[in-house]
């Protein structure tokens, strides 16, 4: 009897597994043929010189030439494109994470006009990374357009104030750097704010009530409840922000990869450098993930 039941259970499990595979089968086919195969092909392409002809692609093996040609051609390439591509956007990430958590907490409070404020803060989700933002970067924030209004965003104004306040040069530099990027940072935090807001609403109100009865201050509540409870979201936000930063169309490295392909038609070079760049970016993401995930606290409420 027991044997029979066990057998039956096994059958049901197998059936469940089969149904599961059936549900994901379309994606699995797509993943293998439209993602994994191109990914493997790009590894192959990286070592080839390619030309598109009417009959098909013509390949010639060139070794690691595709990876190093640009560094040989242009000795300033690393400093002008690779380093800013990796660093400028990464530095932004922690600021973006902190700012979006802060905004999410503010937007989660009850006040008049909250709906309007939320609608405004999610606007970047609708327009972000699109062509309009790129055009705005090209035109709108142009210095030749500098009116009294854009002056607010230009760092000179803030730098003057800081210099007059007698702060050391390093602090001035940090502040001007952030203020230069404030437009970009807020515009890239739309999704992050959304993620945080949904996470904040998942924290049971009873925990705050209990803490309040125990006499905890708002500051303690934040660190002991909000910060701990929200940590899984912080991990997601961190990784998302990093990915977004690395693949941003305004990222000099991504720009270069596309120009190499679209304007100069260098297929092999653009693939090789893209691959190398993504590997480095991937490593940075993995490191950030590993460090952050140590401090993540999961509540098993299922």
């Amino acid at each position, binding site marked *: 009897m027991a044997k029979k039941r066990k057998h039956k259970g096994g059958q049901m499990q197998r059936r*469940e*597994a089969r149904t*599961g595979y059936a*549900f994901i089968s*379309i*994606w699995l*086919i*797509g*993943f293998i*043929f*439209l*993602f994994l195969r*191109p*990914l493997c*092909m790009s590894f192959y392409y990286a070592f080839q010189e390619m030309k598109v002809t009417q009959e*098909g692609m013509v390949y010639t093996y060139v070794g690691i030439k595709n990876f190093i040609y640009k560094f040989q051609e242009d000795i300033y390439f690393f400093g002008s494109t690779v380093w800013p591509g990796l660093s400028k956007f990464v530095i932004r990430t922690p600021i973006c994470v902190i700012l979006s958590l802060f*905004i999410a907490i*503010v937007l989660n409070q009850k*006040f008049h006009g909250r*709906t309007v*404020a*939320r*609608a405004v803060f*999610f*606007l970047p989700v*609708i327009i972000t*990374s*699109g*062509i*309009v933002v790129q*055009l*705005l970067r090209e*035109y*709108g924030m*142009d210095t*030749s*357009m500098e*009116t009294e*209004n854009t002056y607010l*965003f230009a760092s000179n104004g803030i730098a003057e104030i800081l210099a007059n306040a007698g702060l050391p040069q390093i602090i001035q530099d940090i502040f001007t750097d952030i203020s230069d990027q*404030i*437009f970009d940072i*807020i515009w890239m935090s739309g999704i992050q704010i959304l993620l945080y*807001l*949904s*996470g904040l609403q*998942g924290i049971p109100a009873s925990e705050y009530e209990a803490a309040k009865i125990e006499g905890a201050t708002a500051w303690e509540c934040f660190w002991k409840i909000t910060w701990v409870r929200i940590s*899984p*979201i912080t*991990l997601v936000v961190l990784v998302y922000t990093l*990915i977004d930063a*690395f*693949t941003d169309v305004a990222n000099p490295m991504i720009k270069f990869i596309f120009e190499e392909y679209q304007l100069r038609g260098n*297929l092999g070079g653009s*693939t090789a450098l*893209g691959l190398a760049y993504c590997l480095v970016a*991937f490593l940075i993401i993995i490191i950030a993930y590993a460090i952050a995930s140590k401090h*993540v606290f*999961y509540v098993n409420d*299922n």
Partner: protein
Amino acid sequence: MKKGKMFGRQRLHKLTRMLWSIARFFLIFGLSFVILFPLLQILSKAFMPIGQFLDTSVVWIPKSLTLNNVRSAMSFMEYGSGIWNSLVLCIGCAALQIFTCAMTGYGFARFRFRLREPLFLLVLLTIIIPTQIIFLPTYVQYRFFDFFGVSRILGMVTGQDYTVFAKNLIDTRWTFWIPTFFGVGIRSGVFIYLFRQCFRNLPKELEESAKIDGCNAVMTYIKVMLPNAKSTILTVFLFSFVWHWNEYILVRTYLPQNHQPLALKLKLATELMVGNAAVRVNIPAQMGITYAGALMFILPVLAIYIVAQKWFVEGVESSGIKG
């Protein structure tokens, strides 16, 4: 005496709360200004006669309004056909994405099978690896599309090169339909993730009662699970629509000549005007047309957002994205 102390503390509490709400107002107002600033600028410049662009006495509100910028932007962008192409592409892709991603998410959320965890890691991999890295091989794949290897087998059987049996899909919308249908389109991984979280949070009893009513897995999914995922479906639709609407790099590669959506037309129009993207010549006429073009481009999405804004936020909140 005790009462008095309590009273004092309460007053202090009230005061800090008032101060905080004032600070909050300025904070939200200031940050909203940063977000709205470029949009207001678009709005202001789109209707400004080009003569007033360099007039220092005009900052925000034009002295007179004109529709010339909008008119020339619309003709530059071929607005009618552009908007049609965009709508077909965005709605089609969003629908396909909902179909596949919901199904895949459900499979990952509700069934136990051995490769579930490793396969789900691969879903996350598709989010992390940007399309940029594989878009060149994908281009080649669509240029000589081999129907998932069928052409290659035919080629091997008949002894001819497989390209004889391959089809050129570049410049057809299939370059977008195929990947989105197979769940590897623009940010499909994110949507699979969203759907998985949503289905995971639904109570187990739903399926059990459907089973008792005699539903098989597919019927349970369609009749019981999908109606419960309405808000996530809506959220995914909006996100997908918007992301496809804004997309122009993949579009430029896969649809270089035909079916150009609005984003690409706007990009090409501005490039055409400037002559070269790298050279920026700030002639007011170009700026006027660019601003008007940007306005006409975001107007449809903005309209949808204003209408759907409420569900949009609620949908994301109730889908309960958990890490």
